[in-house]
């Protein structure tokens, strides 16, 4: 890491907690130290995987995209110029683009959809101890969510699964909080409509 960047970080550290300082140092070291990078990776693996699996509903696809995210992060780490607190957002931004790219491939999207149905059936048939109602709800959610625009999918997952604030989502997607508020409002309305429609067609869910 260049000296100027180090200075920038030091100047910003006045308002950081010690934990953030520790992580900021870790990010700095991770640029040229494989041990530090490994530590950083382990710290954030679960965050990235969970976001991907909430977006893709399949752990194989989620693992594929998680791999892509960390590979991109590794190569772009020295371009990350920010606080440790922003690092998770930076990774989730990469993850959002990676998931969107993944879904953009129509064939792959169809495959995802197919797997959704297949997995749900398999779980329903063989996993006797599972809650069938929850699995059915999951299938409805998958179909409804994946039919939305990618940006709406992202805000739904950030808000309802990753429990992120509007400002954090805004930072991730490089939009203003008011834009995110609008997107979230439209996304929830559309998703509710789809879920309700599915429920009406297939029976009571809630």
């Amino acid at each position, binding site marked *: 890491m260049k000296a100027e960047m180090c200075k920038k970080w030091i100047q910003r550290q006045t308002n950081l*907690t*010690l*934990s953030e300082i*520790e992580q900021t140092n870790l990010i700095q*070291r991770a*640029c*040229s*130290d*494989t*041990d530090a*990078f*490994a*530590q950083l*990776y*382990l*710290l954030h*693996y*679960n965050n990235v*995987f*969970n976001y991907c*699996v*909430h977006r893709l*509903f*399949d*752990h194989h696809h*989620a*693992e594929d995209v*998680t*791999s892509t995210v*960390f*590979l991109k992060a*590794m*190569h772009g780490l*020295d371009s990350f110029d920010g606080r440790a607190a922003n690092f998770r957002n930076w990774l989730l931004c990469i993850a959002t683009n990676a998931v969107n790219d993944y879904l953009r491939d129509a064939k792959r999207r169809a495959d995802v959809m197919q797997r959704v149905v297949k997995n749900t059936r398999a779980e329903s048939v063989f996993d006797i101890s*599972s*809650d069938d109602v*929850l*699995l059915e*709800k*999951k299938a409805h*959610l998958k179909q409804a969510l994946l039919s939305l625009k990618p940006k709406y999918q992202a805000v*739904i997952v950030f*808000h*309802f*699964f990753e429990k992120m604030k509007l400002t954090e989502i805004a930072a991730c997607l490089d939009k203003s909080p008011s834009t995110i508020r609008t997107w*979230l*409002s439209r996304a*929830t*309305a559309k*998703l*509710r409509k789809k*879920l309700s429609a599915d429920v009406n067609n297939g029976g009571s*869910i*809630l």
Partner: protein
Amino acid sequence: MNDNEKYIEEFVKDIPFDAPDDKHRDTLKKQLLSAFPKHRLQPTSRTFRLRKIIMNKPIIELSAAAVVIVAVLLGVYFVGNPFGSNVTFAQVVQPILDAKTAVLDIIVGQDENGPVIHDMVMGSRIRRTMSNAQDVVSIIDLETGRILVLTASSRDAVYIDLKSLPSIPNYLDSLKNVIARLQESPDFSVEELGEQDMAGRKLIGFHAASPKLDVTIWADPRTALPVRIEQMEGQLKVICRNVHFDVPMDQSLFSMEVPEGYKLQQTALDLMGATEQDFIEGLRIRAQALGDGTFPDSVAVEDYLKEAPAIGQKIGELGLSEKEQSELGMKLAKHLLFIRFFKGEGKWHYQGRGVKLGYANMPIFWYRPKDSQTYRVIYGDLRVEDVVPENLPEPALPEEKTDKGVGYQQWSKSEFVGTQEDLWYITASGQIEILSDVTLRKGPQGAATVAIALPYSSGTVQSVTLANGPVPFAQKGGGQYQLQLPLEKLLAGHTNIHCKWTLSLDQLEKADYGYQVTLRSLIPVSSYKLTVALSPDCGLEFSKDPSRKQWVPFTGNSLGSPGTRFGSCGIEVRKRK
């Protein structure tokens, strides 16, 4: 939250999703690290500091991996014993006396699963390999005091002339003479240990002891052939196992000639010449260059042997030139030789585990030089003081020593349990730097995630390590953290977790006598110990004894099952007068 959001929140509640898979996480980690951009692997600032340390002294011409040389030397366990001439003993030692050749495995220390030194012996020469450095072969000629180290992968050959090595014409003679020397002692005694099952074999044991030597020989009761020899030398335990005598071997295996195509280097090492300053220099290197600023867990030879390959790899990653690597290796060799051929009176004591380099008031090592009335005490800032016996630091509790080596067990319960020692170091800035040293004893089957809770919610974890490797941790709020432990290391016996955390002194409850401290362990423990140390410039002193640099205000055991709460205790400090 509007109606739509409420609806969705309710809808998604409890829907199950796949959890992250440890296997994928680990596989991806390996893939990423192997693809890490090489051009970015630059020497770190630590390398520059190290370079400065090294460049203070002339560089010797040596390009072999000196760390391996150290390991080789450490295995020469009988060097330095005086040798007698009378050779008589009981029936079980007769094969040793008659043997012309031998093959044996040597273990240094208590851990039989640790690295194994494999020796083939013929006359004065030993052909030696180590289980954790398999491309290195050493031929040791005890008669001329010379070692030839051959590294196959780099095709390096190094002759090392060992100074202070007494000429030993025959390796097996030295073994015989250890027994002979025992016999010469007026206090010599032999105790029959009876028959025991060892590694699936029924063996009969004899314990032979004198004030200076201690040998246990296990033999096959049917053939009277010794198969295992255990020897205590000072604080070092050496076990020879799988011993076979008179095994036919080709003499060419013991050649001191350098094979064709090898690059030859030469150096010399004085086995008995290591000084206190060499030892201190090694401590500095191990803390500053090879560690994270804290001293190693142990300076014992057996522990170094286990770590030698990892240390070698670490040195390789520092970006040093071959010369610098060699010089560093030789410095470490001298550091270890100080312990290996310890020349002080009685035992040495080490308490540097987890202590940061620079902690001026923390004694980390002490010993009594030969014929001295006072002890030499080395502190965390590596200064040395002469200390009278009554002012020596308190040694570790006896029960901690017996705990060592118990290992880690998986059990049916859902919690992790262990023991904990805390070191609270009060600094000049009003911060307390705390090292919680947790030794895990038991944990749930297959579980690697452990939740810890700091006794103060405002405390902040700085780092967590296990077996010198970082442990990932996630903050859960309110002083609670989740650690992701490497299960394979735990199961391999690495059970010490070093958790470094900080706390503002203001957070402690003030009292007339100083401060009142909440005693709470990070996980349920069966015993808890708190040590408080004061930085010289923190402006405080211990009220009862201002000359003291550290104090143990609490040691306690959990009654019944392991617990986390041990009440509270006072730290009696006042402003320095």
